[in-house]
């Protein structure tokens, strides 16, 4: 089956020799949600701009929907929809006017424009606000309209560049639901950039982690987490429990880890949480609390780059093309 997105050695250099994207390879299957995870300035938006034909690559190649992004720009644009990082809307136009303009520029016949506009407004929950100027919309409403605009011409492939940045939890959740629905009901391929671990974990079928313009890890969230290590179990002793007794038991299951609240062990395969509970029970050692810490995508990022994704930030990606 032809890949929805196929990228080989894609590079983008800006003035001063800055390599925002330093040679990436990735494949996205049709109907897949691909999460492109990385800190600010890692090269996510530059990649999206190249794949959506807004920025010519310095070298390398990519096909989107089977079309070369350099040689077949118009065909790529007909295939894709995109909601870029800045929800670029005209504050003086209404939501309905935005959609009608977008549909008209896509060549949708006049007779279909009104119907499609109503359909999209209903879908993103903006029917009641349709005739209000964008200047009065909340951040979440703007993002929803942005998504509706990206979907106006029924694209097969959707690019979402940090779609939930700055949104409240309710709006974020609503947008996640819509992305899942698009994949499930319409088979839309989604290329989603994010700096939120949870978003990539919840939504993405596969994740690519980008840092300093290079993909440092790629795979399903589960496989990436499994790749970097086993879970850790941490126990908080009760007042009467000797930590040494806990350490002795935990030591049977792996290497002890530093813990600020009690005793922790990284499991080495000799047992799991249930085995630890059974061992504690048979030794009649009581604990106040017991946690299982499964590896997160942040642990994956830490393992691959030596630093944590949360709070990590690169200098802003250059805005000016070479």
């Amino acid at each position, binding site marked *: 089956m032809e890949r929805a997105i196929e990228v080989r050695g894609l590079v983008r250099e800006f003035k001063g020799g800055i390599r925002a994207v330093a040679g990436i390879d990735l494949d996205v299957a049709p109907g897949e949600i691909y999460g492109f995870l990385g800190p600010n300035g890692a090269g996510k938006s530059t990649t999206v701009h190249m794949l959506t*034909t807004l920025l010519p690559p310095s070298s390398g190649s990519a096909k989107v929907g089977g079309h070369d992004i350099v040689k077949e720009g118009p065909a790529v*644009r007909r295939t894709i929809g*995109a909601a870029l990082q*800045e929800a670029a809307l005209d504050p003086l136009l209404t939501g309905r006017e935005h959609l009608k303009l*977008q549909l008209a520029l896509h060549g949708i016949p006049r007779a279909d424009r009104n119907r499609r506009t109503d359909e999209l407004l209903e879908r993103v929950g903006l029917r009641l606000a349709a005739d209000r100027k964008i200047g009065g919309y909340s951040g979440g409403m703007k993002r929803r309209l942005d998504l509706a605009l990206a979907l106006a011409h029924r694209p097969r492939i959707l690019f979402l560049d940090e779609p939930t940045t700055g949104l409240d939890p309710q709006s974020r959740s609503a947008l996640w639901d819509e992305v899942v629905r698009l994949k499930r009901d319409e088979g839309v391929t989604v290329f989603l950039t994010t700096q939120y671990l949870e978003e990539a974990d919840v939504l993405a079928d596969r994740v690519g982690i980008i840092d300093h313009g290079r993909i440092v890890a790629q795979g399903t969230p589960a496989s990436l987490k499994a790749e970097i290590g086993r879970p850790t179990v941490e126990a908080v002793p009760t007042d009467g429990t000797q930590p040494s007794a806990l350490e002795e038991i935990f030591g049977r299951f792996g290497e002890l880890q530093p813990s600020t609240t009690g005793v922790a062990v990284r499991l080495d395969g000799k047992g799991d949480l249930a085995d630890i509970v059974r061992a504690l029970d048979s030794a009649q050692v009581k604990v106040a609390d017991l946690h299982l810490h499964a590896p997160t995508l942040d642990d994956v990022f830490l393992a691959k780059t030596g630093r944590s994704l949360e709070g990590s930030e690169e200098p802003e990606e250059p805005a000016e093309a070479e």
Partner: protein
Amino acid sequence: MTSLTAQVFHLARRSVLRTLRQPANWITPLIFPLALMAVNTGGLDAATHLPGFPSDSFLSFFLAFPFIQGALFATVNAGVDLARDIQTGFINRLALTPMQSAALLFGHLGGVIAMGFLQAAWYLGVGLAIGVRLESGVLGGVVIFVLAVLIVLAFGSFGALAALRTGSTESVHSLFPVFFVFMFISSMNLPRNLIETDWFRVAASLNPVSYLIEAIRSLIIEGWNGEALALGFSVCIGLAIVGLTLSSLSLRGRMART
């Protein structure tokens, strides 16, 4: 796929809507040039007694000026709108559609031209209402409309050029005083042959704005002056060609989509 004409229509419609929804953008060009005309006419009416002055009504003589100043307002406003589209990324939204690049430029200019047409009707209507008589008759009025729209197109192309080159609303705003200097160092207040200060007369003769004013003025106070009209239309069309060519080249760089 929509045709270029349809794309231009939709973008021009947006441009007009934007202008109408920012009252300062259409009230100022309608009121301010006429207010300045009233002040200048009151203060300089005595100039009509100068030997060789081409009209006995300074109001009729000066009515050409609002057309130029109004075009300047419309131009700067449109340039600012285009620069804002670049700053906010709206231009990227448009670039992701099958829209042809030229449609963006001509759509914006279409909005400016619509505004120019409205302004021309207003200035001419007010002028006629307060006693100005068109020596060239009804057909002359039609030619004034054509000329006014061409002037707006020519000025507008330079506003668009500034927006596309800089992508900055502040930079486009800074054009305003530059254009203003061009307006004042022209034959707006006196015919060039009556300007006695040599450097000013030379500067006014080198200034293309003088020929635009004189073309409109000739239709109001003289009738049909072939030379003034030929010079006015030539300057106007020349400016439009230069402005549109440079804007198109800048647009190519600004919308570097593949």
